[in-house]
């Protein structure tokens, strides 16, 4: 009897607790969806799940009215706490690409130029610059009085050293490949001599791509890729608005305002802390609690939508336009079935980009029809877009005499974030009539090995434009860049006409003429369909309302935050 009465009490108690838990946990559905621990791809050059290029459209849910709003006069001081899933290998951006290095790197090191919202260069460490009429040299005039964090003057020799270091070591070899030499007639003048006209060199002098590093620290005979001063507080010496005071690999980066920064009365912030947090859901909780000030790595669409519903947090797709993330389906053209352009065009016909953006990504991405994102001045909206539907695909195959039932196709993807895309593509392939399946691999390295080794048939991929097509676009299509490494020409695409167009565009200083060449390039690629372009995910970022002058420029968080201040 006693036991029975106790059981009843317990039942009532549990029911009450369940009700309380249900009432308190209103957002738990969102939280329990597809949040994942970061994949390998999160840590390398091109993340798969949370960032990217903002298209021309303003996404729903973006708190655009508040973006960049400035409340009152700037106030100096305060600590900005950022959380990021991205883990930098080290902090030397002259030899290491990627968001993870560039975010702290652009606080620690200055670059010659900044860029406005129209992708036009603006003064930074170079107070002025001049491109020679023949396009074969660029002269930089440096700010007088700029010093490194150890007090040594920043001179043209440091600029020359940084450029040649990046040219010889940075993974994006196209950035400075035409640099023949750098002359330094005086301490404040650097003349970059080019072997051929190279318009991309201006954007390549952005903060995230060309940090100015001290020659007196790094030019000591050691291999700069493994130099002990690439990370760690013992000997890291920067040129930017903040100096490194704490670095724990994969855990925390603490930076304090540099008092002798060359821009007077900047930075406003006293300190920036980047806390590496592998789980995006934890970051979202930090934003909700108000403990985290700023983030651009929120993970899944569910997390973004959840924060959009929070009136105390500003969520925006503004910023990072230069990154230009594109998610696509790429074919291995050495595969017998996929070497047939009719098969590739049929697959492009059947894929519904709107469905991917609106349903799978819940409106947090946009359809994209070429390999150059819509925010770029070189995007061509008139290139063939396909998307006519499954019936059109079937008709195209029938006209070409291809029997899809006789063809087996497997779709790879970067695990785990791109699985929904892969499953969708498999469904489309089956609808057309192919025998299709998803090829699941355990991790990013396995995927990278398969794709770079050409063992795949087709894969979902995610590649960044990196501002100028020479830097982020050419690498995928140039026939000379099929080098067996991920994020190069892994399709095996070889079209001499495209090679020629890219070569011409890469050397054309006139923007209109250059745009025309890239327009032709996009038309040609879309005819050949080595890749079906799917979506472009904006690089969503969230910040607390107290964050003023938030980093919403074309490089977003990969730009110096010397103008950011806190209103509380």
């Amino acid at each position: 009897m006693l036991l029975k009465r106790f059981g009843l009490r317990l039942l009532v108690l549990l029911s009450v607790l369940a009700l309380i838990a249900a009432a308190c946990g209103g957002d738990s559905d969102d939280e329990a969806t597809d949040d994942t621990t970061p994949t390998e791809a999160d840590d390398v050059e091109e993340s798969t799940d949370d960032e990217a290029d903002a298209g021309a459209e303003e996404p729903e849910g973006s708190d655009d009215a508040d973006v960049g709003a400035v409340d009152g006069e700037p106030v100096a001081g305060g600590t900005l706490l950022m959380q990021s899933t991205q883990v930098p290998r080290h902090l030397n951006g002259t030899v290491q690409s990627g968001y993870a290095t560039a975010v702290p790197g652009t606080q620690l090191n200055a670059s010659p130029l900044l860029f406005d919202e129209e992708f036009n260069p603006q003064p930074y460490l170079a107070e002025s610059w001049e491109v020679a009429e023949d396009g074969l040299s660029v002269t930089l005039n440096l700010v007088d009085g700029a010093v490194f964090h150890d007090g040594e003057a920043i001179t043209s020799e440091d600029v020359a050293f940084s450029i040649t270091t990046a040219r010889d070591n940075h993974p994006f070899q196209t950035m400075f490949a035409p640099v023949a030499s750098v002359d330094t007639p005086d301490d404040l003048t650097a003349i970059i001599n080019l072997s051929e006209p190279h318009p991309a060199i201006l954007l390549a002098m952005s903060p995230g791509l060309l940090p100015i590093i001290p020659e007196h620290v790094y030019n000591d005979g050691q291999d700069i890729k493994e130099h002990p001063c690439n990370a760690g507080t013992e000997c890291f010496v920067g040129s930017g608005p903040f100096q490194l005071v704490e670095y724990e690999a994969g855990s925390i980066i603490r930076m304090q305002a540099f008092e002798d920064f060359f821009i007077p009365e900047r930075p406003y912030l006293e300190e920036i802390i980047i806390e590496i947090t592998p789980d995006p859901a934890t970051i979202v909780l930090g934003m909700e609690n108000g403990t985290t000030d700023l983030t651009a790595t929120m993970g899944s669409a569910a997390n973004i939508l959840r924060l959009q519903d929070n009136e105390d947090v500003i969520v925006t797709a503004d910023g990072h336009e230069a990154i230009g993330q594109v998610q696509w389906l790429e074919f291995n053209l050495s595969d017998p079935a996929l070497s047939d352009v009719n098969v590739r065009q049929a697959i492009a016909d059947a894929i519904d980009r709107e469905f991917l953006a609106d349903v799978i990504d819940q409106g947090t991405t946009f359809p994209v029809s070429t390999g150059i994102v819509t925010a770029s001045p070189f995007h061509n909206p008139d290139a063939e877009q396909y998307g006519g539907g499954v019936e059109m695909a079937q008709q195209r195959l029938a006209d070409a005499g291809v029997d899809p039932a006789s063809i087996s196709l497997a779709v790879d993807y970067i695990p785990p974030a791109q699985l929904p895309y892969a499953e969708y593509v498999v469904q489309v392939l089956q609808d057309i009539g192919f025998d299709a399946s998803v090829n699941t691999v355990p991790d990013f390295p396995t995927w990278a090995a398969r794709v770079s080794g050409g063992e795949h048939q087709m894969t979902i991929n995610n590649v960044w434009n990196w501002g100028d097509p020479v830097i982020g676009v050419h690498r995928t299509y140039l026939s000379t860049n099929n080098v067996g490494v991920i994020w190069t020409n892994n399709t095996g695409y070889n079209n001499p006409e495209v090679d020629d167009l890219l070569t011409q565009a890469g050397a054309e200083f006139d923007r209109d003429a250059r745009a025309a060449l890239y327009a032709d390039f996009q038309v040609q690629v879309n005819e050949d369909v080595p890749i079906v372009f799917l979506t472009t995910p904006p690089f969503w970022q969230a910040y607390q309302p107290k964050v003023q002058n938030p980093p919403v420029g074309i490089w977003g968080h990969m730009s110096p935050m010397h103008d950011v201040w806190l209103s509380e």
Partner: protein
Amino acid sequence: MRRIAVRIAQSLGLILAVVVLNFTLITLAPGDAAVVIAGESGAGDPEILEEIRQEYGLDDPFVVQLVRYVGNVVRGDLGDSYFFEEPVTGLIADRLWPTILLVGTALIFAIVIGVLIGVFTARRPESPVSHGVTVFSLVGYSMPVFWTGLLLIIVFASQFQLLPVSGMRDPRFEGNRVQAWLDVAQHLVLPALTLGLIYLAQYSRLSRASMLEVLQSDYVRTARAKGLSERIVVYKHALRNAVIPVVTVAGLQFGALISGALLVETVFNWPGLGRLAADAVFRRDAPVLLGVLLASATLVILVNLLTDVVYRIIDPRIRVGGASG
């Protein structure tokens, strides 16, 4: 003493076996480390891949790589991380202390509270509290550790905001050493509770069953007949025997506890070995993964060795008879 020396020698042999086995399994796993390393840099070409293979000795025969690795480990050199390009020993040293703190706190919490609950419920086995503890134990045992962590975060960190969401310390913290420790302690509550709850449930059940058995034994009846107080009988005479199975199981389960820490550290962004291992797996950073496996295996072996020692202290029969160990 001789027995313990033998156990130490056995432990060293076991660690060596772990090193060889781990290296073999990870080296034979699919995937080209050179491609991964090149990929981390963003790009490269076949010449770069070849350079990487030569630099890291990846093009050497497996046996050569194994002998070299074992030799380096014996000298205390665990190699450099493919990703961070830093010595693995430094990375592990940074992460070992947080893991020991987390696992140690969870273990002590689980044993102390679990045994107390077990004793309490064994003394009144049919009371409502005893049944409540049984239900609680069942629930605690059934809940996956990451799920418990998420629930605790939702309740204590998100809804009521009583405790921090994640991390080991407040990055913005400024204060003296004592305040710093309090800050760490505050961050430790939820992860240690999460990790400890599942073992608390087990230990309370185990000690309850053990205590019930011991309380029926002749020597306890004798103690009561001698007129000793119930508190002395239970906590001085019965508990010592009742706790032996708990110590045994705790030692055996330490490996599982480390595994649980991996999940907890990920959920709570606790900067320990578990998170380092998880990241290393995703990055195919073999030197770091091997180092973490070695460190955790050494910890488990050490704890088991300590368990043997403790076992001998609390159970004189083993000391005298040399019955097991």
